[in-house]
């Protein structure tokens, strides 16, 4: 399928199914139950999964493959957003053009910033990108106010020229659309106690995310992707093997910048507004955290990491003292209060603390992120199963057969390790 290896094709299919059925998967709890607050199947959040999924998948092409840790990728998210909003103000509310322009402009920005930053490697590179991030934020926040709208940001107004669109009626608001298809259009489907929401904007974004994921698979399994891994592994050998590592890293930087630009453009396509905080350096830090948490250098890791963080951000930050007491009402009072006191700093406004702790634990114990964690668990199960299987047979005095099974088990375990 699509010139992919079987393993990659299956992965792509799984992601496609997840994207299509997300409104069901993310809304497992009935609308009126107490657990409904854990539902994530509303358009706003689903869209954010996709935006940050794209952002992280792109970032992973740079960091996961080449090992260059950029602390400035939110710049391109912001540049993409500003480019898209200007298209919407000046040309048309059709998001297709806005997104295309967002990708091109952020690609150009990435070319310039990458060309400068990539003159250095290692920590220097990280710090230069961080300096660019701070500078870009300051530019957007104050210096370039005429272009960026400063602190308040920008949004399309009725009075904007929009030369490609027909004029709006007075009192009409400009709506983001794809050839007339309204991005905010939503259909609610009620099944018993469950409500499933289908949103046009989400599905448009999901299609783009699917394409992004496909491209990422292609890059990972291409000679180009192998060269990027070679950069991470040993640049000296690369140069003495006749390869120029500079254009490879720059290409990876620009591609990941374009992914970020697409994500930024999509954000604007869905909520038609932008502010400078989108390119604050913490936003760059966030995509780093997402990628690492999910598993840098793996295909699905960044997407998983982005989803997990955005889910936790939305759900955990909603939990307050009242909710906690509701959960632990069955405990004796003193214990209930104690448990609530312990948990409270980590929920609600303290969700960043939870994030920080989880992030540290992942970096310390499972540097490969969630994907490596899952792989380890699977391997552990496979091994255990084999050991117990071989033991049973040993008991029945059939030593030879046991040996064979054990061997087969070990092979399976090592295969699991190599494939995953």
């Amino acid at each position, binding site marked *: 399928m699509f010139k992919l290896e079987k393993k990659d094709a299956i992965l792509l299919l799984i992601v496609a199914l997840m994207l299509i059925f997300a409104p069901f998967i993310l809304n497992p709890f009935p609308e009126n139950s107490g657990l409904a607050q854990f539902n994530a199947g509303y358009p706003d959040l689903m869209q954010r999964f996709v935006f940050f999924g794209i952002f992280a998948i792109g970032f992973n092409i740079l960091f996961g493959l080449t*090992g260059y*840790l950029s602390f400035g990728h939110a710049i391109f998210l912001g540049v993409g957003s500003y480019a898209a909003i200007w298209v919407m103000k000046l040309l048309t509310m059709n998001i297709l053009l806005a997104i295309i322009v967002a990708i091109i402009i952020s690609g150009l920005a990435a070319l310039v910033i990458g060309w*400068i930053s990539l*003159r*250095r*490697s*290692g*920590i*220097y590179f*990280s*710090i*230069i990108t*961080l*300096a*660019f991030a*701070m*500078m870009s934020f*300051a*530019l957007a*926040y*104050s*210096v370039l106010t005429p272009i960026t709208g400063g602190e308040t940001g920008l949004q399309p107004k009725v009075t904007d020229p929009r030369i490609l669109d027909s004029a709006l009626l007075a009192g009409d608001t400009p709506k983001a659309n794809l050839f007339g298809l309204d991005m905010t259009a939503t259909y609610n489907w009620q099944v018993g106690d469950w409500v499933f929401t289908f949103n046009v904007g989400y599905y448009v974004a999901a299609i783009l995310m699917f394409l992004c994921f496909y491209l990422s698979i292609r890059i990972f399994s291409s000679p180009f992707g192998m060269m990027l891994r070679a950069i991470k592994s040993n*640049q000296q050998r690369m140069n003495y093997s006749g390869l120029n590592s500079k254009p490879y890293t720059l290409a990876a930087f620009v591609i990941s910048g374009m992914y970020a630009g697409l994500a930024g453009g999509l954000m604007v396509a869905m909520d038609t507004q932008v502010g400078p905080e989108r390119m604050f*350096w913490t936003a760059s*830090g966030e995509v*780093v*955290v997402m990628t*690492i948490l999910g598993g840098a250098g793996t295909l699905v890791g960044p997407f998983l990491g982005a989803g997990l963080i955005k889910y936790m951000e939305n759900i955990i930050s909603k939990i307050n003292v009242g909710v906690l007491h509701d959960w632990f009402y069955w405990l004796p009072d003193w214990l209930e209060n104690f448990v609530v006191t312990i948990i409270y*700093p980590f929920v609600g406004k*303290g969700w*960043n*603390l939870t*994030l*920080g*702790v989880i*992030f*540290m634990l992942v*970096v*310390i114990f499972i*540097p490969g992120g969630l994907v490596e964690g899952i792989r380890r668990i699977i391997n552990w199960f496979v091994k255990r199963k084999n050991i117990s299987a071989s033991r049973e047979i040993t008991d029945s005095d059939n030593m030879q057969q046991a040996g064979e099974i054990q061997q087969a088990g070990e092979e399976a375990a090592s295969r699991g390790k190599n494939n995953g």
Partner: protein
Amino acid sequence: MEAIILQIMNGLDKGSAYALIALGLTLIFGTLGVVNFAHGALFMIGAFCAVTLNKILNLGYVTIDPTQTDFLGNPLKVKIPYVYNIFGENIGNIIIDWSVPLAILITIPIMVIIGVIMERGLIRHFYKRPHADQILVTFGLAIVLQEIIKYFYGANPIPTPAPEAFSGTFDFGKMIGLKAHSIIYPYWRMIYFIFAAVIITAIFVFLKFTTFGMVVRAGMVDRETVEILGINIDKRFTIMFGIAAAVAGLAGLMYAPIISPNYHMGMDFLVISFVVVVVGGMGSLPGAVLAGFLLGMLESFASMSVVLNILPGLNQIIVYLVAIIILLVRPRGLMGRKGVMED
């Protein structure tokens, strides 16, 4: 002339803070080879040591003072800090007034302990891991520390006054024989600069003239040889980490009256301090100090209204702009050694 001196002096306090943080970063980097993204958090914790002591000293109980009345004619409720009971009212007042400098006494041990725990408990396990992992784990730690402070102290800045005696300004212009009222400068900023200068000198003297310092410097250049000589360099490096943490803490503590501490001040200063370290030259202690003051002053010159009228917002980007330019034309920074952190 006066305007120039004024801008130089305006850059001193920030420059001092940058220099102190950058000095600590460089010490840690030079000794342990670790890029510590949590260093800004140490600066912030130092500032919150001042906040905490100030709060503790102001703790008290409410009593009714029969000798005074409020505007309704009722007896006035007054708050009596517990320190009054211990030291009497006069000395108690002085102690409260001087809470920021007094906090130095508690801050040094606290910061050294935090630093040693950080190094032994966490960072030690990352020496052999890639630099990216070191950045990531200390970045995670910075988030955690910052959020803990936010949980206990809230998100708003907490004003923490300098002692009454130093809260005003003085006429520096007149002092050095220029026109009166031409250079009005706050006392505390001057004190901060002097304080920073003393600490920086102390660190350099310590490294230059003590055996401990010489071993550490030798270890910075060639760790293996020092280890072959049978010297336990690990232990000394741990202590250096503690010292670097204390320097960051003191820098933050004394900065409390200038900025009103908030939970994200650490990150704000850290990012610039990194720029300072890179501009000064990774691994160079004098470079860190020099670049700290230079960038602090540059920032203050860029915020002159003359400049801002021509290039609005320049003060916010000048540091980064200069950093990027310096790295392009002089990749090793102002005083960097060759081959440090090249990959």
